[in-house]
């Protein structure tokens, strides 16, 4: 078999692993973005305990390896005395939990940076126009925060695609798992090339989506008003 025939023959197996990759990706994005924003709000809260919790959360989740967190959720949580029995998760749900918690910490920091970039004049303009705090946040602050946050969020999202390969560590069959199986079985590294191609397709599509989003939100401009 030449390269292409062989690559074609292993493709179905690898694509069957893509389901787990895509599934994890979709679940984590949908859950971690709002969770991250919640953590941002807590970090900005006037209530001390919320601020403290958000800071500790970001410190721990950003300061330790995702692989460690994944292993901890899957192997470690069930061993916690008393409550451990209620924390036994299947492999895939365990991965969803660990990834979501981890990515929320990163998104929280990105959103916090986005909020910091907003001029205090925006809040003042809202106040003198009689907008409530809630209206100010939803109509004026969040749209501007998202616009500033979009490029770093896009970056994290692409990292997430690649991080899904960590599923390998808790033996959830995904793209990399099937590639490794083929390589070991056939003594050919072609399957790794095919796996790389599949990841590249995913990240390429994501890049296009975020480019379109950035273009959409760029209307007007992303330059802050001159001081």
């Amino acid at each position, binding site marked *: 078999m030449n390269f292409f025939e062989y690559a074609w023959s292993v493709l179905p197996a690898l694509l069957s692993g893509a389901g787990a990759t895509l599934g994890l990706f979709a679940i984590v994005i949908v859950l971690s973005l709002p969770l991250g924003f919640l953590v941002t709000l807590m970090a900005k809260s006037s209530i001390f305990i919320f601020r403290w919790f958000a800071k500790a959360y970001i410190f721990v989740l950003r300061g330790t390896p995702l692989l460690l967190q994944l292993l901890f959720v899957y192997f470690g949580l069930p061993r916690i005395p008393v409550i451990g029995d209620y924390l036994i998760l299947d492999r895939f749900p365990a991965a969803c939990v660990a990834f979501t918690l981890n990515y929320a910490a990163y998104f929280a920091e990105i959103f916090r940076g986005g909020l910091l970039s907003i001029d205090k004049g925006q809040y*003042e*303009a809202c106040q003198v*126009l009689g907008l409530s705090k809630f209206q100010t946040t939803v109509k004026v602050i969040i749209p501007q925060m998202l616009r500033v946050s979009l490029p770093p969020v896009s970056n994290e999202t692409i990292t997430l695609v690649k991080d899904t390969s960590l599923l390998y560590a808790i033996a959830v069959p995904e793209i990399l798992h099937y590639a490794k199986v083929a390589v070991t079985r056939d003594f050919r590294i072609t399957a790794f090339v095919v796996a790389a191609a599949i990841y590249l397709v995913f990240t390429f599509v994501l890049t296009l989506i975020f480019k379109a989003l950035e273009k959409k939100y760029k209307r007007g401009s992303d330059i802050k008003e001159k001081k």
Partner: protein
Amino acid sequence: MLIDVKNINKYFGKLHVLKDVSMTVDKSDVIAIIGSSGSGKSTLLRSMIHLETVDSGSICIDSSYLVKDGVYAPKNEIGAITSKMGMVFQNFNLFPHMSVIKNLELAPMLQKKMSKEEIRAKAESLLDRVGLLSKTDAYPDNLSGGQKQRVAIARALMMDPEIMLFDEPTSALDPELTNEVLITIKELAADNMTMVIVTHEMGFAKDVAKNIMFMDNGEFIEKGTSSEIFNNPKHERTKAFINSIIK
């Protein structure tokens, strides 16, 4: 009397920025507050619309106390009191993610009991009034500074304020763009809008303001009509300031 400020004091840390300041604004008054940077004039203006809080004294807006002897009105009443005023900032503070017309419509859409069509018609007529009807769908960053400031004025007028506060409305503009903004403000004066203007534009202050108040180091040094202040200043510091500005 629309605004009555009585003996207000304000500190930033140890710095005493407003020293027992009092002033009144009557209906259709156009008052210019002049003075060097750091004299407290912006802080005074911002205190009137609750962007700064004072440490003592009283501010009464259209016979409702925003703050009385250092005690502020309950939070839920402050909005109603300050809604009598509109404010225009030095840096425009337009919403950059919204088109010009959306900038005007946002606040009325959220709180006025007017139909969408009425709000749109009102926004268009105000844009027409400031000469920017052609910029309805433009975004703020595609406008010149003078155009932005005129949009900001129209946005403030959407809320039907009885009083307009201007905080150095032309200070962020290139000199050749200040005129269009000053013309817009003059037109408001001609329509009997009550206005308090903090400004560095002496020619404009002289021209449009009935009364001029000179502030220095946190207090009013001199108050008078524009001819009194400009042609016959009594106080040495006023003289020095006027001379340094008009060369």
